[in-house]
């Protein structure tokens, strides 16, 4: 456990380091000046804005596509049903560079200019599976009689969706959406190949890594990334906690 969390403590500690290029332990002194430096940097703000925008749009697309697919796979038996689960899983099961280079080459061939939307398309492709898995797991635990009963009582599809499906699915979708958001916010490999000249926050951090000066600034921004991904994920895990005895719901890998 210590092994898993100790590094984050180190990140926080060195954000206050008075040394600007070394990681001497224990740090010779502590200061908060790097926070000011980070917050005054316009490129950091631009990267943060882009990351937030991409992650939000990705979440939206992933929610729609992922839950529709889950509904289809859950409700019907059809030819190629197994193949769909495989197809959805593929972008995340294959290494990130595969998705990255594949999209990079097809955007290039199709003459699509690289920008915010190319990042969103790339992220949505591999984030879909998270929503899909969460929604499918919830569908499977829902009684199929519920929608039948609703229809028998005269509800239209829209009403059934609004009053029966959504309340049942809501937490699963919220949890899946949050995970998709965090995954997109954090992603760097696929992003590198589809971002063009723009920098998302992880790319911004990475581009600064090899500059020896003002290193604690990177740590300050890293703390922001931790806050923006850790807290929402914790929330999402607590949301699906009712399923603690079957804790597999939220878990599928990422790549």
């Amino acid at each position: 456990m210590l092994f898993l969390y100790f590094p984050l403590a180190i990140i926080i500690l060195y954000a206050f380091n008075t040394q600007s290029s070394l990681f001497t332990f224990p740090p010779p002194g502590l200061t908060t000046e790097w926070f000011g430096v980070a917050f005054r940097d316009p490129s950091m703000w631009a990267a943060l804005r882009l990351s937030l925008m991409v992650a939000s749009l990705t979440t939206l697309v992933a929610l729609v596509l992922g839950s529709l697919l889950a509904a289809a796979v859950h409700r019907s038996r059809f030819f190629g049903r197994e193949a769909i689960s495989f197809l959805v899983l593929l972008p995340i099961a294959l290494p990130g560079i595969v998705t990255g280079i594949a999209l990079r080459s097809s955007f290039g061939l199709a003459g699509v200019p690289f920008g915010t939307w190319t990042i969103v398309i790339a992220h949505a492709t591999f984030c879909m599976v998270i929503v899909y898995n969460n929604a499918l797991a919830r569908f499977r635990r829902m009684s199929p009689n519920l929608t039948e009963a609703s229809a028998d009582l005269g509800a239209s599809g829209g009403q059934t969706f609004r009053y029966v499906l959504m309340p049942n699915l809501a937490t699963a979708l919220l949890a899946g959406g949050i995970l998709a958001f965090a995954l997109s916010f954090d992603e760097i490999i696929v992003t590198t190949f589809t971002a063009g000249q723009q920098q998302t926050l992880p790319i911004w951090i990475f581009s600064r890594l090899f500059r020896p000066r003002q290193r604690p600034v990177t740590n300050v921004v890293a703390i922001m990334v931790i806050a923006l991904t850790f807290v929402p994920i914790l929330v999402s895990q607590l949301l699906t906690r009712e399923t603690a005895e079957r804790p597999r719901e939220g878990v599928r890998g990422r790549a």
Partner: protein
Amino acid sequence: MRLTEPGRPPGLALRASGFFYRRPVARLLLLLLPGVLWLLVIYIASLGSMLAYSFWRLEEFTGLVVREFTLRTYAQLLEPANRDIIVRTAAMATAVSVACAILAFPLAYYMARYASPRMKTALYLVIIMPLWSSYLVRALAWRQILANEGILNWTLERLGLDPVVRALVGAPLVGGPSIVQSYIGLFIAFVYLWLPFMILPVQAALERVPPSYLEASGDLGAPPWLTFRRIVLPLAKPGLIAGSVFTFSLTLGDFILPQMFGTSAFFIGQQVFVQQGVIGNLPLAAAFTLVPMVIMFAYLLLARRTGAFEAL
């Protein structure tokens, strides 16, 4: 049977619902098409165009991609320098997967067998959190931990263990100028980052081993190691395979960590990154990308046959 008031024609919403209820195929298509079209048109077509690029070549003088069929790019892939990159990456991926499996097993076993439900939920949360978040941040942290003047060496010096580490880092093949700049550092960072991906599927698989099997094995006179080898390990296999799919795939395709850690020798991901970005040789980048893809495809198909996906 619809219970609308008699005599009143059903509204549009109801008629639409009825239409889709009576025509499950239409409903299915409506649900299915957006996602499937997205995956086919964007993802599968992209894989296709990547494949196409790998059969084209870069004209060295003009720096332009020549779009005619050639195997020259693949021939480049087999040049000794590039072959070394592939072998190096596959070896690292194997080592990382094995290490993750060994480290993950005891914890997964504890979670599945001995932990109280509350403890299990807590452990589960603790493991899942780093799986979803801050990949780059945690890599960054290890760079600072392993730094020469950093906390690891500080601790080791206090413990008097620094000569051991110096010997390790100085060792041929795996060593380098410092821990960060050696395969040992890269290996540590990889294992650390991918460990949760191994723990969870293994735990899920072990969860399904009925305790009665272990008791039966013991009753039949099997010593613990035999029970482990003949009962636990085979039943945990789908979990180990599922976990290794992740650790292997993630290691094969990563170019961030090999850039932050390790020697100057390239890994597949870095070569792809440099060929695509700096040199602009998209055909060679595509051909290189196909290597981990082919490896993973074979592995996934094999894994599917062992039923590893149900254990996820």
